């Protein structure tokens, strides 16, 4: 049931498998680990240059570098007091950074349901993650 679809790129598929293989508190621990690993913005990039994702309960900023469409770069910024939002951003950053425009656009909108986080995090909170992916795709479509 939690088998990722064929179109998930390998690193994202691995993250989905990691989540699917643990339960309850361990899912939260995994999300916190990812939250801790969200990379800082590269030197010279400012929050002002990024798009705010209003669907997240706490401020999240993202931008997609589309200068090379066969390897797009994803950048996210969220404050430490929003670890869940950071964790979601980290799933996308770890899973999709460096993939091609087509590969990212092909990620199913509902891929997050396979993470099995609805019980641990609540369905409402999970919507922030789908909103983030939607914004990433929107920037890619415009590229």
């Amino acid at each position, binding site marked *: 049931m939690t088998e990722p679809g064929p179109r998930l790129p390998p690193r994202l598929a691995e993250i989905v498998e990691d989540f699917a293989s643990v339960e309850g508190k361990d899912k939260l621990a995994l999300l916190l680990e990812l939250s801790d690993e969200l990379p800082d913005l590269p030197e010279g990039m400012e929050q002002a240059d990024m798009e705010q994702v209003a669907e997240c309960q706490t401020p999240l900023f993202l931008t997609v570098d589309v200068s090379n469409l066969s390897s797009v770069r994803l950048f996210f910024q969220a404050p430490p007091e929003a670890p869940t939002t950071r964790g979601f951003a980290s799933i996308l950053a770890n899973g999709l950074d460096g993939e091609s425009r087509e590969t990212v656009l092909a990620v199913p909108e509902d891929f997050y349901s396979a993470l099995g986080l609805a019980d*641990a995090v609540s369905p409402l909170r999970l919507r922030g993650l789908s909103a983030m992916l939607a914004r990433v795709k929107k920037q890619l479509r415009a590229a």
Partner: protein
Amino acid sequence: MPVDADPNQDFSAYAHPDRLVSTAWLAEHLGDDGLVVVESDEDVLLYDSGHVPGSVKVDWHTELNDAVTRDYVDGAGFAALMSSKGISRDTTIVVYGDKSNWWAAYALWVFTLFGHEDVRLLDGGRTAWQAEGRELTRDVTPVTPSDYPVVERDDSAIRAYKDEVQDRIGKVPLIDVRSPAEYTGERTHMPDYPEEGALRGGHIPTAASVPWARAAAEDGRFKGRDELAAIYHGEAGLVPEEDVIAYCRIGERSSHTWFVLTHLLGHRSVKNYDGSWTEWGNAVRVPIATGTEPGTL
């Protein structure tokens, strides 16, 4: 045995000063017998990212709400939850959290539905604790499950349902604690929270607008009693001896105001309409007022 109250003079003017503790008091009393510190946040991972040493987490989404019905857990569910947190019926609970204690106040209100007697708020919440450079840890708090009795929830005194609110429009003062743009109907949700919107914008006719944050000082702690009285009694015209019903979007910000009116200003009967705008703004054929005026029925 309950833990002694915080003798802090800053709290002495409030109606129930024993409902608040300061960060300094909490730091001194960590580890006291009979005291359990509870963190309750909007962000489900914030506790795990670092919490007050020895505290436990209570999450509103996954633990206080029933998983199926839009309601709170029942008596057995609450007893199981309290037991799993090491809380007994006579435990002194101190709650703190993010967002100026919204969720902490919400948890405190839910604990009150079950008649847990000694439950207090940390003035200023997580932000104040952190701003003072006090310790936060990721250490897992060891919990010895307690024996908490099954006590059925009593909603009658401090919780209002939609029908009651509708019946009492024009008879009981209503207080809308959302942001001004949500009150007028310009927005159906808080800025940054569109996913919890409603089909209609505006407010319940006759409701006075007093955004919850007006109760907080700049550092996130509660304002003094005189300042609070000037806002809620002077401006909004509430009277401590009369009934009042507060609401917001899902009942969390109005729990904060419920705490202010009940425990800081000593109102006799305050109810929180937790269905709030996500229920009212989606309900069929209920009256709604838009714009800055309270409106009439």
